[in-house]
């Protein structure tokens, strides 16, 4: 059993059918079958004549058949621009229905844009087939292992790169006129039955064994099997991109999704945008929060330091006050200690000192208790005795909390020396200090507060 080729091409004309099988990128067929046709065979029967050969068909099959009705349709440019592709296709079906004799609901067509003649008219090359016939073909070819089936009219499918002028092809009594540069169709017309051509300047005119009319010979003689194989191989290369095939190519309709993808795509994009927004928002939030936390972390030592310094300043104020309180309470303690330890017997000691230290010339007349302390007074016959007594007393009364503040003396002028003299010796209470220090109210109050 021979291996399955990649491609199979069927060329069906009024008089014969040709089948050529090709490996990929091959220019010569691995199988070539040619059969003469009897008049009146339909397309399916014609194809089956060569398709059911033992050699398997290729996975892709291109059927080029002159039986496929092919017409040029005209529409206003403005109308075409306002229509969607599906609407345009429906309009074409209405137009071609009467031309091909296939009811519109059973009509399957393919079209290509034709070369424009003016700015107001859009022209389309349309090839049609009965849908039931096409489905029948597909079913039959699928049974033979074919995956994809393409149908087209053979006009215009062969490439002629060296030709830059108008090309006319004669197929089954119809002349197809192509632009040599754009390769787009320019017109379709019936051939002159006498000459097989419609014009004097026909360059390429083939098919149906009719002789070329003009100065050039046909590029491909269908009767030449080798040349035909090369031409068909070139056609297969054009099939690589079916949408760019030169002729209208009837092919399986692409399965359309039951769901309109545009809203879905729009929703998907919107969802993607929303997700992106959310991620960006989330990133911004996290960044902002991170920066805020980092700021707080960095600022915390400074905040703590300010707080500590502030508290320390307050403590320093309290410390100053407490220092004063401490000093005051210390002084009070010293005073009361001194009072209890050294002053309980100071009055008898002072009296004893006065008895022992006064001279014979002195008479003590009074001791007065005054605001500052004591005032010892009397009369002396000696003007220096009171001062001498004060001098002797000064170091002795200091431990008792007195300070000899001074001696006042007044002569009575009853003696030649000016005496006798009244004298007064002031003893000021100073406690353990050199000068009187009074306990302060504030110190006592603060002391009580700190104790609480």
């Amino acid at each position, binding site marked *: 059993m021979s291996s399955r080729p990649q491609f199979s091409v069927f060329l069906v004309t009024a008089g014969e059918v040709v089948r050529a099988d090709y490996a990929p990128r091959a220019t010569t067929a691995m199988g070539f079958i040619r059969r003469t046709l009897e008049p009146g065979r339909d397309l399916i029967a014609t194809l089956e004549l060569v398709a059911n050969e033992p050699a398997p068909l290729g996975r892709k099959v291109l059927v080029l058949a002159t039986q496929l009705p092919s017409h040029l349709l005209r529409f206003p440019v403005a109308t075409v621009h306002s229509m969607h592709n599906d609407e345009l296709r429906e309009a074409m079906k209405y137009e071609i229905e009467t031309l091909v004799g296939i009811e519109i609901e059973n009509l399957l067509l393919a079209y290509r*844009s034709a070369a424009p003649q003016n700015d107001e008219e859009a022209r389309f090359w349309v090839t049609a087939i009965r849908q039931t016939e096409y489905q029948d073909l597909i079913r039959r070819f699928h049974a033979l292992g074919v995956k994809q089936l393409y149908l087209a009219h053979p006009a215009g499918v062969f490439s002629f790169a060296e030709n830059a002028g108008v090309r006319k092809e004669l197929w089954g009594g119809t002349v197809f006129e192509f632009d040599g540069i754009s390769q787009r169709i320019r017109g379709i017309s019936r051939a002159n039955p006498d000459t097989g051509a419609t014009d004097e300047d026909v360059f390429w005119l083939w098919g149906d064994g009719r002789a070329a009319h003009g100065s050039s010979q046909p590029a491909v003689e269908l009767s030449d099997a080798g040349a035909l194989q090369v031409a068909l191989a070139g056609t297969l290369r054009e099939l690589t991109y079916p949408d760019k095939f030169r002729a209208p190519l009837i092919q399986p309709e692409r399965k359309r999704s039951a769901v309109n993808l545009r809203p879905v795509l*729009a929703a998907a994009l919107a969802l993607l945008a929303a997700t992106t927004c959310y991620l960006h928002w989330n990133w911004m939030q996290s960044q902002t929060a991170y920066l805020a936390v980092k*700021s707080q972390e960095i600022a915390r*030592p400074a905040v703590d330091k300010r707080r500590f310094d502030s508290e320390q300043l307050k403590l320093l104020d309290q410390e100053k006050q407490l220092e004063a309180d401490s000093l005051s309470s210390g002084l009070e303690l010293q005073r*009361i200690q001194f009072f209890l330890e050294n002053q*309980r017997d100071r009055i008898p000691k002072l009296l004893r000192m006065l008895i022992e230290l006064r001279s014979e010339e002195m008479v003590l007349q009074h*001791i007065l208790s005054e605001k500052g302390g004591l005032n010892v007074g009397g009369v002396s016959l000696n003007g220096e005795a009171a001062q001498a007594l004060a001098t002797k007393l000064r170091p002795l009364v200091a431990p008792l909390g007195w300070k000899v503040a001074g001696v006042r003396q007044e002569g009575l002028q009853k003696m030649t020396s000016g005496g006798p003299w009244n004298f007064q010796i002031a003893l000021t209470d100073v406690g353990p200090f050199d000068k009187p220090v009074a306990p302060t109210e504030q110190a*006592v109050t603060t002391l009580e507060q700190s104790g609480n």
Partner: protein
Amino acid sequence: MELRRDSKSREQFLLVLFPAAILLAVYSVFVAIPGQQRLRAEQAKLQLTQAQAVTPADAENSLGQLENAQQSLQRMKSSVSSNREQVRALSQAWRRTDNRLATFQLITEKLRYHDLSVVFQGYMTEVDISEYHQKLIELINRQEPEIAVEFWQIELKGSFLNVTEFLESIDGDPLGIIPVAIAMKSSSDPREPKSWTIVFLI
């Protein structure tokens, strides 16, 4: 035909993009731009904070100084409190309030013993004492106001020597009395005894 298809495709493409574009535009205006501004503000704040930052060691140093100051303050408070307690204790330690009658009897006996004639003795509210002692007594009284010290004043007549010996014979500690003021006046007649006024704290 090509033109129509292109235009249609472009419109369809734009229509597909439209909801996402609207969403992005709204998000940009109402969320992204304010959010970016907040973010930049936080960045500026962070930079400012970094410029003003102090090291944790500085903060710890301040904390250490604060603790030292607190300890110093506490020591001062303790010292002041201790002084106050001592003042309070000393202010009360010498006083005897339990048996004053015995004290007065003892004083009377000693006066008699030293041949001193009592003119008057009793509690006084107004006495002549120095300002130093007045404030000292105020200090003592503040320690326990409900049992303020009192003045016991004795007016007597006697010689200088007898009064001296009388006062020397009084040991204030067990008796709970302290002489704080004394006054003496001599009579114009030398044979007359001197007049004395002695003020005790009791």
